[in-house]
């Protein structure tokens, strides 16, 4: 495990009863790196992200964020990352601005106006969240994850449902956050997003890492072919 890694996952295994959700998962994400986590449905992406964000305990293995063990110090780890779950929960009877104020007070720092501008929520920030569409709720969750500019961002299918201008703005913001030293781990099914944004792709199949490549090294065959090939060989194996 590298002491410098923003995210470090080592020998990760998670078993529910007789079901092995993930096993032999090892990867690291460096500060300033944008990594994408891809895999088929049920590959173990969400389980991995839940363990990384201390929503779930690993059966075996060590997981840390900016060197903080997420099992031993869940509060410390949470301060180091911003996290958008696949189905974000929000307070329906607050406005987005009020919700972000709460998050800033919890985290002790943050720029609410910048977060609202980044997600394009500005005009709707003073409406109640219960009136929001799914896309607007996701924007609010993204703004909450990013408002205090944590050194690590962990996003589970977080770009789904965003309108194209908002998605473009968020992607640009994520890229600039990486350029300023933040590490981003994005779980997604959209391979085009991975090819355009990510530095690295980590591929999971049936709970195991089947590929961990730099996007620039994937070559002419493309990510989709690599993905299908790895899934097929994982099934044969």
């Amino acid at each position, binding site marked *: 495990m590298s002491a410098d890694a923003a995210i470090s996952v080592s020998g990760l295994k998670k078993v529910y*009863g007789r079901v092995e959700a993930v096993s032999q998962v090892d990867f690291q994400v460096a500060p300033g790196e944008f990594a994408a986590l891809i895999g088929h449905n049920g590959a173990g992406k969400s389980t991995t992200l*839940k363990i990384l964000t201390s929503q*779930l*305990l690993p059966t075996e293995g060590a997981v840390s964020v900016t060197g903080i063990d997420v099992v031993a110090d869940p509060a*410390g780890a949470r301060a180091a990352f911003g996290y958008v779950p696949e189905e974000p929960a929000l307070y329906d009877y607050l406005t987005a601005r009020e919700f972000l104020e709460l998050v800033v007070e*919890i985290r002790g720092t943050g720029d609410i106006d910048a977060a609202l501008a980044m997600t394009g929520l500005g005009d709707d920030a003073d409406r109640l969240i219960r009136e929001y569409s799914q896309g607007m709720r996701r924007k609010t969750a993204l703004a909450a994850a990013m408002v205090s500019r944590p050194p690590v961002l962990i996003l589970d299918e977080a770009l789904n449902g965003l309108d194209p201008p908002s998605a473009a703005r968020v992607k640009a913001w994520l890229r600039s956050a990486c350029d300023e030293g933040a590490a981003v781990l994005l779980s997604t099914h959209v391979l085009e997003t991975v090819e355009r944004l990510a530095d690295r792709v980590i591929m999971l199949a049936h709970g195991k890492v089947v590929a961990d490549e730099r996007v620039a090294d994937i070559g002419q065959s493309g990510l989709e072919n690599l993905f299908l090939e790895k899934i097929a060989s994982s099934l044969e194996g």
Partner: protein
Amino acid sequence: MELPLANPHLKAWRRARAHRRAESGFSLGWLFPLAAVAAAGWMARTVLLGFLAVDDALAAGVTGLAMRLGLVCCGAMAIFSYGALVRGEDRPVLDPHPVDPGKLLPYLLLRAGAERWAWPLGVSALAWPLVFYGQPVAFALIVAVCFGGWLVGLTLGFPTYLAAIWAAESPSLALVFELIRGTNPRLQAALIYAPGAVLALGGVAVYAAASGAGLVMVGQPLGVVLLVAPLILSALAWLPTPALARAYYFRTTTLLAEVDGMYAGMEDPEEARRVYLDWAVKFTPASVRSETLKELRHGWRGLRSWVTGAWGAGLVGAVAGWSADPVAPARAALVAGAGMVLVGAVAVRLSSTDPMWLDRSLPVPSNRRLMARGFAVFGWLQGAIVPVAAVVGVRQGGAVLGVIVMLEGMALLIAIVGAASSRMRAKGMLPYVALGALAWAGLAGVTGISGGLLS
């Protein structure tokens, strides 16, 4: 612990309450169930206040009634504090953030208390006829015991549930929980028993307070000391809570995820398709058959503990009826009837979780849906009747017919009231509680009148 004004969670909660009020306006809706409970108290006065007709039984009667009503408040708050701390709406919202449990817990406590402040008033309102019969002090003492039960159920719940997380993860207790877990995952066992532990511990304080009420009635000063026992226990219970919260608040999230994951892993597709009572739809009219099946599925999959709770109510009623005492059948019917009113609230819960968009995009005639919901609730309530009927049949023979007729009538009434109230979605809970309380009081009146017939 900081002053409430500096607490970000309290600030956000105040804002949310202001928005909610601005949207729904000022409401006196809570007066409706309070008035209904008061009416129920009048209708059931011969059952609840029978001690007034017996010489020298006032102090003992006040003690007994205060204890029972205080335990209801304590038990209700034990469940509400579980909801606030363990499975409440705050946890998923705040889980991604580094909350300080020392700030979060006072907010959760105040919120759970503020949202249920009317419980002790509502429950003790059942005893208001004491004032009519010239015993205002007795009534005031019962109100005090109910508030004691409410407070101790609320404050004892938080440290108990946090300690339950420790217990669930403790290797030295693993064998104990393995033995008592039933078909549930072992990690869940401590949480399942925790509300019972709150009720048992809080019950001691309620018992002391109720005994104190009795002593005050006969002019013994010691009674005042016993009366404040819930207050003392609540203060003591809160002492270790901040430390427990820092150690186990976050572990609660991981434990719940573990339990949910184990359930998902155990579920086989065939089992997921099976639904309790699905065979019963063939006895319903053809026009509502498919809707009834949907309601049965919805309840079984989304509100299973409510659906199976009817059997719990029936078992408690059966325990109350396991006696050769001539009043045992009436007692069993009253206990089961109270449980049926609680369980029948599932009808309103069913509609409050219905997605709005589904109603708009796939409109089903509301009469058909409500009738189907009524059939489903009536079917589920049979679980409360069967154990009581079995026990009364064994112990009292012929009295069982009267009990069955009364409880089936009660089930029908609750099914109709529940289905009708569910038209109003979550807001239907107020009329449901009010009408349910009246239905129970009616049952109490009938058992009081027909006690001789039953035995």
